[in-house]
C-alpha cells in the first residue's frame, strides 16, 4: 500500500475506494447466486400473484373471501397458536431447569436438547407414525395390557400435527429462553425471598417479569417456525388437517392455481417479516435490562 505510484496508476480510484472495491468484489458471487436463485424467483412469485389468472389483486381478495382458503388459514392459525404455546411452556420449564442445574447436569441436559437437532424432520414424522398409528407400538401396548379396547386415533388429526410440531420446536424455544435466563442475576430471587416473597411469589414477581423479553422473543421465533410447517402436517395430519404450506403446495402442484398459491405465499412472507421486525424490537428491549 505504501507504493504511491501504484495507487496513482489505479484509474480514477482514490485510496479509500480500493478497499471498497475489494469488499464489493468479494460480495459479488453471493449476490449473483442470491439474485438468480432467490430474488428472481421471489419477484416472479410476487408478480404471478398479481397477474394470474387476471391482472389485479383478486387473488389477495380471495384469501379473505374464499371459504376453503379461510378454513385452511383458521386451521393454520389455531394449530400454530396451540403448538407454539405448548412449545413455549415446555421450553420455559426446560430452560429454567437447565439454567438452575449444577455444572455437569447442565451440560448433559443441554446435550439432550441439542440432540434432537440431529434427527431430520422427515424421520421424526415417520417415527411418530410408527409409534402412534392404529397398529403402532403405543396402541398395541395399551391394548395388550388391557387399558383400551379399541386403538386411539393419535395421528391423522390435529393432535398428531401439534405433537409433531411441538417436538420439533421445543429446542428453538429453549435456546433463546436460556440465553435470557442466564442474564438474570441469581441474587434476585433470594432478595425477593428475603423481602417476604414465597418461592412462587419470588418467581412470579421477579423471575417471570425479567424473563418476559426472552419469553416474547422465543414465542415469536417459534410462531414464525410454526407457520411454515409442511412435512409434519402433511404426514401426521394425513390429509385431514391441512395447513397453509401444504395448501400452497397443493395449489401449485395439483390444481395449478398458481395465482392463488403465490398470493398465499406472499402473504405468509409479509406476516413473517412483520413478526421479525417486532422480534427485532423485543431483542433491543431485552438489552435494556442488561446493565443492572
Amino acid at each position, binding site marked *: 500500500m505504501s507504493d504511491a505510484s501504484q495507487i496513482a496508476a489505479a484509474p480514477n480510484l482514490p485510496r479509500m475506494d480500493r478497499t471498497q472495491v475489494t469488499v464489493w468484489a468479494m460480495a459479488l458471487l453471493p449476490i449473483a447466486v442470491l439474485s438468480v436463485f432467490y430474488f428472481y424467483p421471489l419477484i416472479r412469485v410476487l408478480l404471478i400473484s398479481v397477474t394470474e389468472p387476471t391482472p389485479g389483486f383478486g387473488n389477495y381478495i380471495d384469501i379473505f373471501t374464499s371459504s376453503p382458503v379461510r378454513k385452511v388459514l383458521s386451521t393454520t392459525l389455531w394449530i400454530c397458536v396451540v403448538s407454539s404455546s405448548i412449545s413455549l411452556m415446555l421450553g420455559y420449564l426446560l430452560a429454567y431447569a437447565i439454567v438452575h442445574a449444577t455444572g455437569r447436569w447442565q451440560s448433559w441436559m443441554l446435550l439432550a436438547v441439542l440432540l434432537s437437532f440431529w434427527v431430520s424432520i422427515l424421520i421424526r414424522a415417520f417415527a411418530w407414525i410408527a409409534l402412534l398409528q392404529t397398529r403402532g407400538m403405543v396402541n398395541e401396548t395399551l391394548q395388550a395390557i388391557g387399558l383400551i379396547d379399541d386403538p386411539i386415533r393419535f395421528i391423522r388429526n390435529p393432535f398428531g400435527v401439534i405433537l409433531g410440531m411441538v417436538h420439533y420446536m421445543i429446542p428453538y424455544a429453549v435456546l433463546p429462553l436460556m440465553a435470557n435466563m442466564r442474564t438474570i442475576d441469581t441474587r434476585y430471587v433470594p432478595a425477593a425471598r428475603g423481602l417476604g416473597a414465597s418461592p412462587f411469589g419470588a418467581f412470579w*414477581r421477579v423471575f417471570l417479569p425479567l424473563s418476559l423479553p426472552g419469553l416474547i422473543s422465543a414465542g415469536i421465533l417459534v410462531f414464525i417456525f410454526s407457520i411454515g410447517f409442511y412435512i409434519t402436517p402433511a404426514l401426521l395430519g394425513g390429509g385431514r388437517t391441512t395447513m397453509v404450506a401444504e395448501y400452497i403446495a397443493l395449489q401449485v402442484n395439483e390444481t395449478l392455481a398458481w395465482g392463488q398459491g403465490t398470493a398465499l405465499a406472499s402473504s405468509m412472507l409479509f406476516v413473517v417479516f412483520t413478526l421479525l421486525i417486532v422480534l427485532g424490537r423485543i431483542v433491543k428491549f431485552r438489552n435494556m435490562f442488561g446493565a443492572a
Partner: protein
Amino acid sequence: MTETQAPSGVMIQRVVKQYGETYALKDVSLDIPAGSFTTLLGPSGSGKTTLLMSIAGFTRPDAGRILANGRDIIAMPPEKREFGMVFQGYALFPHLTVAGNVAFALKLRRRPRAEVQERVKRALDLVQLGHLADRYPRQLSGGQQQRVALARALVFEPQVLLLDEPLSALDKSLRADLQWELKALHARLGLTFVYVTHDQEEALSMSDQIAIIRGGEVVQSGAPSALYERPKTHFIASFLGRSNYVEGRVSGRNGTPAVVAGPHVLDLPPGADIPAEGNPVILAIRPEKIAVTVDSGSGPGLPGCLTAWSYLGASVTCRVATDLGEFHVQLPTWQAAFEPREGQALRLHWPPDAGCIVRDDR
C-alpha cells in the same frame, strides 16, 4: 421510622455447615445482642458469608440452633424470618423503579396503597433519595443503589438487618461517608445490625461487637477496642491492624511475670493470663505503643538501629532493627523528638501493659 417492637437479638448455638468434605462452619456459637451493631469479620472463604446466609435462611446448617426472640428459626424459610437483607451488589430488581423496589416488601404484605406510598416515601427520605423515586436502578450511581437497597430492606421495619459486604463495590471516599451514615442510621433506628465484611477498618469503625471468623470458627468476639488491645491469637493481632512479635519464654523473676527473649527480659502486666514458667510465648506489641529515644549508649529500653522510615503526614513509621528482629514503630509526627537518619542508634520503650501474649495460630 418508629419501632413498634423491641428489636430482637440473634443467638447462634453450635452451628455446623459442611459442603462435601470441607467445613464452611464448624461449631460456631455467637450471641448477637438486640440492638447491637455486630460485624462478622474474616478473610474471604472464612465462612462469614455462610454464617450470614444461615441467619438469613438461605443456607440450612447441618446442625446447631439459631434463635431469634427465643425461638429456633433454623427450619424457617427466609421469607418468614422478617429480617431485612442488603446483598452484596445490592440485587435491586431491574424491572422496577426505585419506589417499586422499596414498595416490594409492602406489596407482598398487601398493605393499603396509601400506606405503601407513605412508607416508601419515608424510607427513601431516610436515605435521602426521595427525589429519585421514579428512576430505574441502572440509572443510579453505586452509592445511590446502595441506599436504595438499604431503604428496601428497612421499609417493612424488620427487627434485624443483615448486610453482606454492602460497601465493597464503592470507591474509598464514598465508603468512608457511608460508614458514618450506616452508623448514624443504626443509632437512629435501634435495630440489630449484622454486618459482614473483610475490611478491618470498616469493622473497627462501625461495630459494637466484632466476631472474627477464620476457617469456619469464631476465633474471638468482643468490642472493637477489646479485640484490638487484647487479641487472643497471632492471627487476630495481625488481621486487626499491625503488630510486632517477640518470641520468648515465660519467667517468674522476683514474682513479676516477664518474657525472656534472647538477652532481654520484657516485663508483662501483672494479672494477665500468663502460661506457666518456662513455656514458649509470643508477645505482641502494637507499633503505636512504642516510644523511641535516641540511644545514649546505656539505660533502659531495647537498643536498635533505624533502617528505614516513611513519612505519612500525621505519623512517621520507622523500621528499627534490633536483636529481637525488626520492629515497626509508628510515631505521631508532632511527637517525633529526633531527626530520622539511617543507621541512627535508638532505644525502644513500652510500658508492660502495652504487650499482649497471643496464642500461636500462624
